């Protein structure tokens, strides 16, 4: 029995179908991140879990109990909002204690609980201030304190970091993760930032246009995407998507990629069975930038390396890495190389492809082409 069970949930606002049957299950202690571009229905789903939006169809279960009809205050949840939603007329202590006060917790118990949370979040010195006297990061902490103080079964976060500046966002992200690890709470977190999703989640649910695209651990969503959308959405810089053709060459399956000078034949090692059916057909190949490197930094232990000489179009150093842009199959391709001795643009250099990490997609349905055995945890929502 899963702890939070979102079963075939639909949401309609009049004619518009915002959520089209979403199924998600998570266990106690999980950190579920709902991620997707704006308008994908992730915030609506969160509001439905909170009880702030009604459920048109389907069922929500928390710890085995149906919560569809329960008032938000009866669901044993707490929520942190994007705008923090602090009550401006109350002090920080008043804000944190308001939920307890409404639940008729006596004053002494309230004070102890507020003190405990304030120590946890290091905001003891702010308790007597009003929200208007706080900085963005401090407000964020108070909003989290208000959620933590009630010790609910489930925490909901609605894009809590999007109003902070970049530096503070990274710090708060770390703190939220530490808090989750220390307290072992169950969290549902909405964001449009795929880096936030990758760093925080134990489970990621990628959504688009009201449909769940993939549900899985961050690593499985990253390495084993269900479709072109997930492949392109997760990861920064994003996955290289290159048009290719599957062919048989000397008894082995290869992917043929046109370059300006020659045709590249990358050996197929992954999803070989499924791709046999695609012989002589066009596919879309997906390769992460870190799977295309210089020969010296290629991963020869686990991976299978294929090397080729290609022309360098552009070199983008970021300090830690060096991104080298070349052209494959008519599109720009990012390769991540070691900084130090960058190749000159316009010259030929040697690239190493880790073909064991290469994935293939159906260019028409955008669905992943994969062997049966390696099918991920969630059913594929194809957009055919």
């Amino acid at each position, binding site marked *: 029995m899963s702890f939070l069970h979102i079963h075939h949930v639909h949401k309609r606002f009049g004619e518009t179908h915002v959520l089209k049957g979403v199924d998600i299950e998570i266990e106690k202690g999980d950190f579920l991140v709902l991620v997707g571009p704006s308008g994908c229905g992730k915030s609506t789903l969160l509001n439905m879990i909170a009880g702030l939006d009604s459920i048109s169809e389907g069922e929500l279960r928390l710890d085995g109990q149906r919560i569809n009809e329960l008032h938000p*205050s009866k669901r044993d949840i707490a929520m942190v909002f994007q705008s923090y939603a602090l009550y401006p*007329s*109350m002090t920080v202590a008043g804000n944190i204690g308001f939920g307890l006060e409404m639940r008729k917790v006596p004053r002494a118990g309230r004070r102890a609980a507020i003190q405990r949370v304030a120590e946890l979040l290091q905001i003891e010195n702010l308790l007597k201030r009003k929200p208007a006297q706080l900085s963005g990061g401090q407000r964020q902490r108070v909003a989290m304190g208000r959620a933590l103080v009630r010790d609910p079964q489930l925490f909901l976060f609605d894009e809590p970091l999007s109003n902070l500046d970049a530096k503070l966002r990274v710090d708060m992200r770390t703190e939220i993760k530490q808090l989750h690890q220390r307290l072992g709470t169950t969290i549902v977190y909405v964001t449009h930032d795929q880096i936030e999703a990758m760093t925080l989640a134990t489970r990621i649910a990628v959504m688009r246009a009201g449909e769940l695209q993939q549900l899985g651990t961050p690593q499985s969503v990253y390495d084993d995407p269900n479709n072109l959308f997930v492949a392109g959405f997760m990861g920064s810089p994003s996955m290289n998507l290159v048009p290719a053709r599957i062919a048989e060459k000397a008894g082995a399956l290869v992917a043929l990629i046109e370059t300006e000078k020659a045709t590249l034949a990358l050996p197929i090692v992954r999803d070989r069975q499924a791709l046999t059916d695609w012989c002589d057909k066009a596919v879309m190949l997906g390769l992460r930038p870190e799977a295309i490197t210089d020969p010296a930094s290629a991963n020869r232990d686990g991976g299978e390396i294929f090397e080729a000489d290609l022309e360098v179009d552009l070199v983008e150093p970021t300090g830690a890495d060096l991104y080298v842009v070349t052209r494959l199959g008519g599109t720009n391709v990012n390769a991540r190389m070691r900084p130090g001795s960058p190749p000159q643009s316009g010259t030929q250099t040697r690239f190493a492809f880790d073909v064991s990490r290469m994935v293939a997609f159906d260019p028409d349905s955008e669905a992943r082409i994969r062997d049966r055995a390696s099918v991920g945890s969630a059913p594929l929502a194809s957009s055919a």
Partner: protein
Amino acid sequence: MSDTASPHGKGVRERLQHWLPKLVLSPSCVLILFFVYGFIAWTSYISFSDSGMMPDYAWAGLRQWSRLWSSWTWGIALHNIWVFGLLYIVSCTVLGLLLAILLDQRIRAEGALRTIYLYPMALSFIVTGTAWQWFLNPGLGLEKTMHDLGWESFSFNWLIDANMAIYTVVIAAVWQATGFVMAMFLAGLRGIDGEMIKAAQIDGAPAWKIYARIIIPQLRPVFLSAIVVLAHLAIKSFDLIVAMTGGGPGNATAVPATFMYSYAFSRNEMGIAAASAVFMLAVIAALIIPYLYSELREPRS
């Protein structure tokens, strides 16, 4: 600014550009200085003079002021303005807030209802006063209608009852201004972050507590504006009372403004009238100046 080297014509045009705005604005400045501040000064002087029917510039010290404060009618007028002002401000604020909260429940036809409530503000006080005078007149309005319908024992004669007449003025004035106050509160309510209300719902606060603890405290600036606007309307109230009761029955609904008018123009006591006018100005200034100061200062901080 070195015109010395430039040709003569350009200097004239530049000087014109420099002076034009000042020239255009100066007539209205002069008019306001004379007709507003000049007459304020003149009235203030008259209140310290011996003026009767005509202005008399002989200095009389505080004689008119002491006569004003020992006047029995002035006492009634002050008492009435307290009763009227307090009831008017409190009723308008409470009813306006209540209407705004009810209108804010995402009801249908909100636009039409808002207009209906706001419409009395479009009428002049004279029209409001006359209409309510007809409506409350025992021989003409509500009471007669009830009698005609067969309810013989119905009686509502506050308008001609010296003890109750001031309350009829309150009813008419509240009817007129409540919609306006409602519009102010409605704007304030619309400015409140919806996420905050969601947070309070999750915190388990019932609707009335969300209003009492979270929403209404945030409307403090609206309360301040509403009270200042209503207070100065109350002190200035003249036309409504003249149209509705004429200050009567007897002196029962006299207020400082009607007092001033009758002493200046029918009782030939210009000095006392001037003193009462200056007193009203002082009270309004005491309300408005701190308010304007706090409103105009805010953007800079």
